[in-house]
């Protein structure tokens, strides 16, 4: 077929390059999980999903609220009178009640130390869309952003793919708990300048993904003064703000700005309901900028990712129910804390340490002692073993661009308690087995290790087809609840 040969040339560079970053091992793990998903009864030897930062721990609370508030949904008998107005509403400003409710939530999550202006709330297609929109507004193709590492693997796509903007990592080290230091920022900035790379700003995630830690006031102030000095932007991705489950408390960059001499036009916040509320399916991303031009521009771009008005309406109702929100946040913290503790203890028992964290839906696990050598290659080898032998989908530090090999991000919120037990058992068994081996003769352990390596450890799936299938169908993601096989609601007639 004549066309197919010419076909690839007929597509754009964006469609054919791999700046979407989905060829990274971060996404490789999905495939392993997808082809063999764990189920306590049907597939007890399957791969346990610990690479997806999802938070279904409090779904029961949400379900209860929805059941008790039928008029919040315009598609029920109670809410139908509003249907017409909502269904037709496509104004990119967004429903006023929705923006007010989101602004209130953001304030609440920051301990009510800041008030957020509903008029600065701009919608986008999930946090993914929000991050991308921010970059579209702040930088031109070829510009770059400093990003402290380790950082979220999806940034490669969200910040770079269609925007043409580059990422310059600012490497943070375990020796000081991966703190972002002024010195490291300065160094990265200078180096970039020398290579003629135009740095337009810094992106931070606070609380951090993958570390699960919150930034302290000093670091935040240092960041704000750094960007003010250099006249570059600061984008603070705060989507995990409400997943803080123990002290220290979350501090938004908005709070720190209040009593600092800084250029407000440089500060922008990204928010979402995917993590805090556990609503990734709703696709609610928020760009909150203190810069009027950026707000205007982002708002116009929101046409490409508006939140469904039906969803806006529902959320406006839910999030303005103060009692519900308060209770939800408290419960969520409690359950996250408990879950985190179970893992911390379980891992301690076998001598695995994790970064001390108080937020996020994951923890940063230190597997450096188990590496044959402190290299990325060894880390990747170990990771393959964990996926294929231990059957846990965890994410290797290299996919987060961590400069030190041996760290792994493990998501702990998206499973039920029984599965947690299974996961811990597997880890324990693996670690103890490893220790046992080290006690044997060198050749014996080498033999077993070799056998491991000889087995089909290579992830042989072609990475270009990674995201093609319905990777994250609801049937696979949370095996803990009896998911109906189809969410189809059949009409009565």
């Amino acid at each position: 077929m004549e066309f197919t040969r010419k076909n690839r040339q007929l597509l754009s560079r964006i469609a054919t390059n791999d700046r979407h970053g989905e060829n990274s091992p971060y996404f490789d793990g999905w495939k392993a999980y997808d082809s063999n998903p764990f189920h306590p009864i049907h597939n007890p030897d399957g791969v346990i999903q610990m690479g997806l930062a999802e938070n279904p721990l409090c779904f029961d609370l949400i379900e209860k609220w929805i059941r008790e508030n039928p008029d919040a949904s315009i598609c029920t008998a109670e809410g139908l009178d509003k249907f017409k107005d909502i269904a037709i509403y496509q104004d990119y400003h967004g429903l006023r009640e929705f923006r007010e409710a989101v602004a209130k939530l953001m304030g609440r999550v920051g301990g009510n130390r800041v008030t957020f202006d509903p008029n600065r709330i701009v919608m986008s297609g999930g946090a993914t869309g929000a991050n991308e929109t921010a970059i579209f507004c702040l930088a031109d193709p070829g510009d770059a952003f400093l990003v402290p590492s380790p950082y979220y693997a999806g940034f490669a796509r969200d910040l770079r793919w269609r925007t043409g903007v580059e990422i310059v990592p600012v490497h943070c080290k375990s020796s000081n708990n991966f703190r972002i230091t002024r010195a490291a920022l300065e160094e990265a900035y200078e180096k970039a300048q020398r290579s003629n790379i135009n740095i337009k700003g810094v992106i931070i995630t606070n609380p951090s993904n993958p570390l699960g830690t919150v930034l302290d006031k000093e670091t935040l102030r240092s960041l704000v003064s750094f960007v003010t000095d250099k006249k570059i932007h600061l984008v603070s991705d705060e989507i995990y703000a409400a997943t803080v489950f123990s002290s220290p408390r979350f501090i938004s960059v908005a709070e720190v700005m209040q009593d600092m001499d800084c250029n407000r036009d440089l500060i922008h916040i990204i928010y979402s309901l995917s993590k805090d509320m556990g609503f990734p399916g709703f696709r609610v991303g928020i760009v909150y900028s203190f810069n009027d031009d950026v707000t205007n521009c982002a708002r116009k771009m929101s046409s490409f990712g508006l939140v469904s008005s039906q969803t806006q309406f529902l959320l406006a109702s839910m999030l303005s129910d103060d009692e519900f929100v308060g209770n939800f946040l408290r419960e969520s913290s409690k359950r996250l804390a408990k879950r985190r503790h179970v893992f911390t203890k379980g891992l301690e028992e076998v001598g695995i340490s994790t970064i001390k964290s108080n937020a996020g839906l994951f923890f940063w696990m230190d597997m450096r002692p188990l590496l044959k050598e402190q290299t990325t290659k060894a880390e990747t080898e170990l990771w393959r073993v964990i996926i294929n032998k231990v059957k846990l989908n965890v994410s290797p530090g290299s996919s987060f661009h961590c400069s030190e090999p041996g760290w792994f991000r493990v998501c702990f919120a998206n499973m039920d308690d029984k599965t947690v037990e299974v996961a811990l058992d597997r880890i324990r068994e693996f670690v103890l087995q490893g220790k046992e081996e080290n006690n044997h003769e060198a050749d014996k352990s080498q033999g077993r290790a070799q056998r491991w390596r000889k087995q089909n450890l290579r992830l042989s799936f072609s990475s270009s087809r990674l995201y093609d299938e319905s990777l994250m169908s609801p049937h696979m993601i949370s095996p803990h609840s009896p998911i109906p096989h189809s969410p189809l609601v059949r009409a009565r007639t």
Partner: protein
Amino acid sequence: GSVIPCALFYFLQLYLKRHRSPKPQSNPPSPTTSSPKLAEMTRTSSRSNLFSRSIGQVRISSRAISIAKPNESPYYIGLDKASEDPYDRLSNPDGVIQLGLSENRLCFDLIEKWMSENLGHSITGRDNGELNINGIATYQPFDGTMELKLAMAGFMSHIMGGAVTFEPSQMVLTAGATPAIETLCFCLADQGNAFLVPTPYYPGFDRDVKFRTGVELIPVHCRSTDNFALSITALDQAFNQTRKHGTKIRGILLSNPANPVGNLLSREMLYAILDFAREKNIHVISDEIFAGSMYGNEEFVSMAEVLDSEGFDKNRVHIVYGLSKDLSLPGFRVGVIYSFNENVLAAARKLTRFSSVSAPTQRLLVSMLSDARFIEEYIKTNKRRLQNMHALFVAGLKGLNIRCADSSAGLYCWADMSKLISSYSEKGELELWDKLLNVGKINVTPGSACHCIELGWFRCCFTTLAEEDIPVVLERIRKAVENTTDLLNSS
């Protein structure tokens, strides 16, 4: 002997590169937050300089600078004005009547009735009490659930008269047709490339295609003499001229049924376009979002239907659809990219990460779209009411000696008000638009906003009106153009 000239040449190139003036960028019309007076509209370039100076030392992207400006397109100014002071027969009879937004309010009662009869008490579950938010709150496939794709495929087929079947696996669902168009542009063209687009065209294309992709739109002018039909000669001319200027054409962007004219592309025309595309090795994007808004007797033929029947190369054809017009649900943000090209689909699927359909909405629609009997009734009733409204409105305009282009579909009519403009110029047209908006208090879209090569044409959407509103609209037009002799001569 050769080093010096080479060195000189090199430095000349360097010099030229440094001092090359930036390509003049056409101003993407973007929605405004204020309504500048008519006089300010022509001062575009000086205004942009002022604006960038006022930003101060903080530089945002060049893209953002032009987008953040208050918009000067009458399309958006009018929309704003109408939404600030909306007409209501009872509570605000002097408000602005919105005829500039192609929205269909004619059949909401049917949808409401369906909801109340079918949807129990929750968005998440069925009536039997089984409630599970897991199915909608968690991450879903970013390009839409298979259930919704299936339902959508069935719906699209039905809406287009059953002449073609759509394959769910070739579908990518997006948050509205707006991101569908943008996503396709990102897949099919690089920055600096261009698409050919017949004029007059939907003002939103300027945003969808150009805002963030850096892709250009090259107009292919159509004229009233042949009822704004597209001609291959015109396409060819535009293609060659653009190529001469060094810009690469990557495809043709069509809307069929056409917006704002409302005419259809004939089967023969579709063949001709496909032949042209094959000859030039370019893509065809067919935006068929108004396929279900037919009121005429002509038969709508989808690109998909033509591809099915003939041996055309399907890999270059991509169809855009959405539920904002045919099903009146613009707020829900549901769009479709339908392609036969596996590589485009693969890329588009990854890109839907940025604009996915909200899960609760997906669930609701699966239910609604699968109800064949309801959809059948809806389509029939919608067509009847559209026909009725269209006939009344066009007859009413005729009574004012304003004739409309021949059309068979859409939620609007394309009215020729050239006899009512003071001077045959863009200024004259905008003056009439301004008079209609500020004196007559009706918002219509002037042809210049749609890049029409002829002056005096206006798009008037009639589906936001009730029958009783029509005389009000006509009266207001009369009042606004009272002093024009032609109008007085009509009756």
